[in-house]
């Protein structure tokens, strides 16, 4: 309500809504904006003589004034941004002079995500049984592969490869991680999708590549039948851990579990 009251002080900017109750502000704004929209549609839609543009123009400015009024509600400090047109003028002339000179060589932009990833990578603290590689060379760190060799549990002795795809807005978004080794695992499906909470619903920008690799390690030492992606494997782990263990062994040695053939990964 306080915000609405501030509009009243700017009646000279926005005279229409004034005689009405605050709740009507919205209606007026909506009507005006719809009018702008409808005008534009109808005038552009008919192939006949268009109706005059200034109507639309006025509406735009009415809004602008309303918003200008609102933006005035605060002390404004953005002073050095004022009247840049002179600057643009000078720059335009400089550009004309410089037009004959050679253009700069094309340069690649480094995103903030890339910087943060560089940091993550340079601070990696990998377990001894874990390796990282960069198939596209040293200048593309956004796509890499991590190989995990569990040192205990059902998967001891196996080697599992994961691909990481990191977005330019990392760490705002989690990396996309896929398991490239076909594995008999309750939390990894046969297409390589991985059910690890920090990769999706529980991702936070404070987490990093190290955390994810620990998470992947954990999946192999502590497979979890309560969050299944491979339904059959989860059911076997829950009901018959002995049989699960022999299934895992068979799969890792390169063999069938049920109808599915797993390539050797030991």
């Amino acid at each position, binding site marked *: 309500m306080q915000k*609405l009251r501030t509009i009243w002080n700017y009646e000279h900017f926005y005279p229409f809504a004034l005689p009405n109750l*605050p709740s009507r*502000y*919205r209606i007026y704004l*909506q009507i005006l*904006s719809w009018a702008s*929209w409808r005008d534009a549609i109808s005038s552009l839609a008919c192939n006949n003589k268009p109706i*005059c*543009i200034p109507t*639309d*123009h006025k509406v*735009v400015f009415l*809004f*602008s004034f309303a*918003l*200008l009024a*609102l*933006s005035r*509600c*605060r002390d*404004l*400090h*953005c002073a050095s*941004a*004022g*009247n840049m*047109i*002179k*600057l643009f*003028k000078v720059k335009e002339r400089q550009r004309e002079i410089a037009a004959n*000179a050679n253009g*700069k060589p094309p*340069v*690649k*932009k*480094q995103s903030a*995500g890339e910087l*943060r990833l*560089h940091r993550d*990578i340079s601070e990696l603290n990998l377990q001894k049984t874990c390796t990282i*590689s*960069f198939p596209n*060379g*040293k*200048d593309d*760190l956004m796509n890499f592969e991590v190989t995990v060799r569990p040192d205990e549990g059902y998967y001891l002795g196996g080697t599992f490869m994961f691909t990481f795809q990191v*977005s330019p*807005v990392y760490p*705002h*978004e989690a990396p996309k991680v896929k398991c490239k080794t076909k594995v008999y695992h309750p939390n990894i*499906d*046969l*297409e390589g*999708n*991985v*059910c690890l909470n920090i990769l*999706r*619903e529980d991702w936070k920008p404070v987490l990093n590549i190290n955390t994810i690799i620990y998470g992947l390690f954990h999946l192999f030492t502590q497979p979890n039948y309560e969050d*299944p*992606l491979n339904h059959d494997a989860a059911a076997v782990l829950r009901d018959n851990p002995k049989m699960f263990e022999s299934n895992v062994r068979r799969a890792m040695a390169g063999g069938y579990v049920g109808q599915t053939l797993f390539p050797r990964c030991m």
Partner: protein
Amino acid sequence: MAAEPTAQESRSRDLDKLLLRPGNLVGPNFEPGPALRDDLKEYGRVLVVGAGGLGCELLKDLALSGFRKLEVIDMDRIEVSNLNRQFLFRLEDVGKPKAEVAAKRVMERVSGVNIVPHFCRIEDKELEFYSKFSIIALGLDSIEARSYINSVACSFLEYDSDDSALEETSKPMVDGGTEGFQGHARVIVPGVTPCFECTIWLFPPQVKFPLCTLAETPRTAAHCIEYAHLIKWDEVHSGKAFDPDDPEHMKWVYNEATKRAELFGIPGVTYSLTQGVVKNIIPAIASTNAIISAACVLETLKIASGCSKTLSNYLTYNGAEGLHTEVTEFVKDKDCLVCGPGVLIQLDTSITLEKFIDLLKEHPKLLLSKASITHRGKSLYMQAPPVLEEMTRSNLSIPLFDLIGKIPKDVVHAIGTTTKNDKKTSCLRKLRVVFKGVDGIADMDTAGET
């Protein structure tokens, strides 16, 4: 004598009220008069990024606000579902590039305006392309694209030896965004206001469903759709990438989602919901776009002309219940890796990368040990992991000047450890390296040779 001038007058009458008259709320150095209006036409070059719901409004508003030299960039083609709000497009335009049609329609209606369309991705343009604009207006729908344009605009910003931003190198941006009844308009003047990256942490994380919920216990229509999109697609089309812009692919996901919803007795899967979930679409409302666009264009006009002090610096609008707007002044992150000054380091061109890394240890503002160095996405030297250390080791004996392409000054980033209150902490710093005895002309000569 009467007819012609009247038409012209009515066109710029409202604008003239702002540009021809003095006022008590105007910006510093504001000089009202017809010369200002003419300069705006002549020198005000504005790039509109995106020709969607907001982009169409921005183009129209800019054209009607006295800007004559506009360009618009958009990589999308027009779809039927755009027509309700992207008012520059007609049914017969479906399938054509948005940028081209939007430019053509506005030019048809507003005489004297020249709009150059660019039908391509924003990443496809050279930095040089962006440098020619006075102001960049953003009508985008993703954090990723905003972050990219922001980093491009901030890359033009230069600082003097006292770490003060040089105003003439600042590329102002005006960013608009809408989501249903809500929207925001913000002014970004690199070096003066916070940049997009300074406040990126304010964005809430995207809602993502756990994969196992999708696979095992779907409860909502969205779960069924995401199951078809993320799990079923890969299972059936091994290796083939899903393309959200291909209607065949979308139809397939919709059909699979319907089957799954029937299996679990979940109602509500529709084709439009499928599109919405997969492409993360929030219904757009034409009036919100109109309001936000008006605010953005007014800010553009204010930055260019100084007819008022600019918004400081983030306006939010909410029209869902009543009307609420609020202006918040975001603060700059002085150590921002994108818009901050970084640490100035003067070097001889003969300094090798190894020597440079040693220098960082002793630099009083840094005291950075074991530094890894990157330059524009390239790893110059990485201390770890061993595989990268090995790949970059040969660079250590090469002069830094040569490694960064023999340019007189540029930005590199260093990652290392520093001691703070007797505790070792890792840090990532922006460094402005300037080479002694190399000026711009020498640079051009060498650029021509190589």
